[in-house]
């Protein structure tokens, strides 16, 4: 059970999400309308921040190549707890249209603790705002504990990350066997 103090802090945290949007994917396009006068996410206390040190939420907008995943993990580790990860778009769930790409990861959850996914390709600004509302509920209930999960299961996450970044032998052991016939 949460103590009174914790539920109080969670109440305030849920009303002041500062967001770092990691915009390498196409989802970046959906954010300007969400921020500006049409949908105005500032009315929920959500504002974009410039550096990971200042942010509470890491919003991953879309697909992640291996190279950008590496930077994303570094950025995530520079954020201060409590912090949450929002996976935005299908690409973070199962790779989306890049389902068979050799260089785009498929499930973000294996490498970073995603607290909430926003499905869709692309999700509309309403979906984004809905996600923030759901995240607020989760935070207030004390259920969004991805950052603790990451610390607790760091070995597992680290192993998954190292599987991508510290390869020492070819992934396809015998390339000739899987080679498609002409």
């Amino acid at each position, binding site marked *: 059970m949460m103590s009174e103090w914790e539920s109080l*802090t969670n109440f*305030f*945290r849920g*009303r*002041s999400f*500062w967001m770092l949007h990691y915009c390498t994917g196409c989802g970046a396009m959906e954010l300007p309308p969400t921020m*500006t*006068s049409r949908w*105005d996410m*500032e*009315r*929920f*206390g959500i504002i974009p*921040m*410039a*550096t990971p*040190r*200042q942010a*509470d939420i890491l919003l991953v907008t879309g697909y992640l190549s291996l190279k950008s995943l590496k930077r994303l993990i570094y950025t995530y580790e520079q*954020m*201060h*707890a*409590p912090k949450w990860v929002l996976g935005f778009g299908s690409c973070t769930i199962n790779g989306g249209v890049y389902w068979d790409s050799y260089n785009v990861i498929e499930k973000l959850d294996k490498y970073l603790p995603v607290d909430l996914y926003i499905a869709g390709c692309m999700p509309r600004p309403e979906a984004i705002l809905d996600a923030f509302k759901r995240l607020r509920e989760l935070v207030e209930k004390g259920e969004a504990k991805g950052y603790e999960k990451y610390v607790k299961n760091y070995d597992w996450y680290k192993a998954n990350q190292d599987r991508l970044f510290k390869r020492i032998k070819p992934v396809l052991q015998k390339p000739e066997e899987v080679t498609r016939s002409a």
Partner: protein
Amino acid sequence: MIFLKLLEGIVGIGALSIAVGLLFMGIGRKITARIHRRYGPPVLQNFIDIFKLFSKSSISHGFAFDLGLVAGVSALIAAVVFLPMGQINLFPHNSSLIMILYLMTMAYLGMAMGVSSSGNPNATIGIARALTMMMGYEVPFAAVIFSVYIFAKTGSLTNIVAAQGGGFLNWNMVRLPFGFLAAEIALQGMLGEKPFDMAIAPAEIASGPMVELGGKYLGFGMLQHAVGIYLETGIMVDLFLGGASNIWIFVVKQFELFFIALLINAILPRFKIEDGVKFMWKVPLLLGVIQALIVVL
């Protein structure tokens, strides 16, 4: 005795200035949002943010980092204590304007030391820009305050306020109109509002001085901004708007000045640094010099 008075003053005035400053920031966000045709955050949003920041874990780059950020707030609050605010005037014989201005500098030095000790070049670039801009706006502001000194024949804010007693027409705003205009423009730079916000350009230098701040350190930075708004608008109220008879009127007058700054902030883009300095040394300085000439001759 003095010690007890100070203790009282710093707790009371510190809390007051932080509360008013944060409220101003909240109202400012709301007004800016309305100008942008948005709904805007709740008025008390900044209190929520502060509470969240102080309950969030953070990293530090060493003792100088801690000291610098704490100094940023503490030195400003130590300066606010000497500011006459309506009926609250703890040290009426010790309210020299130049002293308050130089004491404010300590807060900026502390802040600069803290963020630069993090070793992030973005922070230092931000500080270098802020100091350059400071050189820009302090020169016209100095011209204005020296004309007020000569005009009122006193340098104590208490006496400057007293000299403006007896109605609207005795206010320095009416008597020294050019000086007031110059000081308004300088105030825009002092508050770090657009078009003079190059120090914290988020898109160019990752929010400048705040780049490495998180959690309570960012909280201290925000508090410094809040107290800074309170102090700077307070100085302007005492200098030009004839002070106030009680603290509520004082805060309302402060808000008027802040409101003007907000309106300008909401619609203008940013200057380049050198253009900002050159602008400050052309328009407001010219106005300040005209005012000084009128006063001296």
